[in-house]
């Protein structure tokens, strides 16, 4: 388990991180979500020891992270980077060795990794000769090549085509499920995060604003929304119910917000009294909606 506790980091007057704490348990995929400039990259850099926090700690399996432990982490930085003139395979072998693998293991793993990521036929090309998508795959390979104990990936899906997205999703799922590797990645593709992640950490302006499983996030939010569609009844049948307010009118019904003490069964009764209820159910907001709510708050 990776634990970030009370991280704080400033750049001059800018507070990039303010008391940021979250954990990435073994075998779980955690999505790290927030608007641009919220502090995702800073937090990830600190987790990898590339940047030092002003306060707070990074612990791995209960112990403070030092250089030797960090060597077993896999990292994909936001600023992609490889040696442009080095051949793909040589590059991965070199990086694997820097991460502590022996010569033979490094070579075998480098070959396996480019196979899995579908760039095996470019093994002897210089990185600069590859398309951007393939460079991205090699970049991912460099994070995976040493069979890391932990994966920290900054925007790993950006720049990938749909096939690449599927390949990477599969790789991350296998890493977590088969090998128990904790995975944390940041992304702006929220549907992807929703589909792939066991839990989500939402950060805004350097502060964690929400975290938990998607279900927990939905449950925890203060607004209770129901979507109701009534055929034939009065247009604003809900207007007179105390504690009920209209949020928006959609083609598939009206979204109502219920105050804490309102019994939804009573609202249903009133709806039926007004006409034929075609649709009545709790609104599950998408992650994107949660995100917008939390971030704009």
């Amino acid at each position, binding site marked *: 388990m990776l634990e970030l506790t009370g991280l704080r980091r400033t750049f001059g007057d800018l507070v990039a991180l303010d008391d940021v704490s979250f954990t990435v348990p073994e075998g779980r995929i955690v999505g790290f979500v927030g608007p641009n400039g919220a502090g995702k990259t800073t937090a990830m*850099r600190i987790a*990898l*020891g*590339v*940047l*030092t926090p002003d306060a707070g700690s990074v612990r791995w399996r209960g112990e*403070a992270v*030092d*250089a*030797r*432990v*960090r*060597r*077993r*982490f896999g*990292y994909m*930085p936001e*600023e*992609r*980077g*490889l*040696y*442009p003139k*080095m051949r793909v395979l040589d590059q991965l072998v*070199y*990086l694997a*060795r*820097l*991460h*502590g*693998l022996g010569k033979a*293991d490094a070579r075998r*793993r480098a070959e*396996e990794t480019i196979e*899995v990521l579908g760039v095996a036929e470019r093994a002897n090309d210089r990185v600069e000769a590859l398309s951007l998508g393939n460079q991205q795959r090699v970049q991912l390979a*460099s994070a995976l090549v040493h*069979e890391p*104990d932990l994966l920290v990936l900054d925007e790993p899906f950006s720049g990938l085509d749909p096939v690449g997205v599927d390949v990477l999703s599969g*790789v991350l799922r*296998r890493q977590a499920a*088969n*090998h128990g590797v904790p995975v944390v990645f940041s992304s702006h593709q929220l549907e992807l995060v929703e589909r792939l992640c066991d839990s989500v950490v939402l950060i805004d302006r350097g502060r964690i604003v929400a975290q938990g499983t998607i279900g927990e996030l939905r449950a925890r939010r203060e607004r209770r929304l129901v979507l109701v569609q009534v055929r034939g009844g009065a247009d604003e049948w809900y207007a007179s119910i105390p504690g009920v307010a209209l949020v928006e009118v959609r083609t598939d019904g009206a979204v109502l917000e219920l105050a804490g003490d309102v019994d939804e069964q009573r609202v249903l009764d009133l709806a039926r009294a007004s006409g034929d209820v075609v649709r009545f159910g709790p609104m599950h907001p998408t992650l994107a909606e949660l995100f917008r709510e939390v971030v704009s708050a």
Partner: protein
Amino acid sequence: MNDRLAHDPRPTDRGAWRLVAMRDFRVRLRDKGFFISTGITLAVLTVFILLRAFGDEVTPSFDLGITGTDEVEIQRTAAELDDVAEREGVELRVGFWDDVEEAEAAVRSGRLDAALVDDELVGDDSVPATLTQLVRNAFVRVRIAAALETGGASPSEIDAVLNRPAVEVRTLEPEDPDREENAGIAFIAVLLAYGQLFGYGVWVATGVIEEKASRVVEILLSAIRPRQLLAGKIAGIGLLGIVQLAFIAAYAIGLSVVTGALDIPSTAIGIALVVLVWFVMGFAFYAGLFAVSGSLVSRMEELQNAMVPINLIIFISFFISIGALESPDSPLSVVASILPFSSALAMPVRIALGSATPQQIALSISLLVAGTALFVPLSARLYAGAVLRTGGRVKLRDAWRSAPVTNGQG
């Protein structure tokens, strides 16, 4: 991906710098620029050595026509000319001409370098200075002999006046017969060492920028520590510098021995070793600073400005070292050979010329090693603080402040 490697839970990372060094060494060994620069250096040295081996044996030779009204005077002058030319090691062929016009025509056509007509030395558009000097000397001797003869001196007395060496040379210190040769070797050696120190220093700086500009440095630093990356880079590039310098020195000495350009190869080998040792120490001293200047900027174009202070220091050291070839005992040479900023270039010169005392050498080494011990951690911290900051030029103060603290495992 299913059978995972059996990892040591806490693998040691001590060898990381060696991996970096090996990569940097290999990549540059295969670099086209490396081969071209080595080739140019070898070619220049070859020309220099061959010139030294075979160029010296060409003695100046002149054809002089002589004519005039006084036959006896002409004969005497011709005899003195032969004498003086032999003494000076100049090949001089003197021919007698009956006719002034013909002699002048021969000068005009180039058959004669000059014609001596009575007291007049006639050249085409000029007369070679050596020839003028010879003729002048011969004239003086003829006149002195005539004056002595008139005064009643015997031929043996005249001979004694003209040919006894007037000045005996005595030196207070034992004379070093090889000093000139050693100075020549030291000049080439210091030129090479300067080029090497500068060239390989720049290579360190550009290597740092390459990693910074391609952003690969962030990946590297997630695996190893800044200090390991810096140490590996300096070691790898420095090793290549040593190998190249040793190779060039071996080639130059070998060629000199084969062609006979050097009298005593053992001194040359000694000087080469001294220069190599001081190159290693000097490179260790400067390389960290080059790396810092590379880490402060983000693009190659900005490097030139960032390197100005170091370039200036190395260039001034080189300049002083060239001066030390002439005056190795001047206060400037002595101070420069001891201060760590300049000793890498200045001290080998003074050692080669035999003017450095053991105490000065010991002090110079101690200061250079101490300076390196002080500068390397300093450079490592600045490098670590600056190398991840892209965008504009990083200020030294900011680099110092933002260096990652290594909590004791650094």
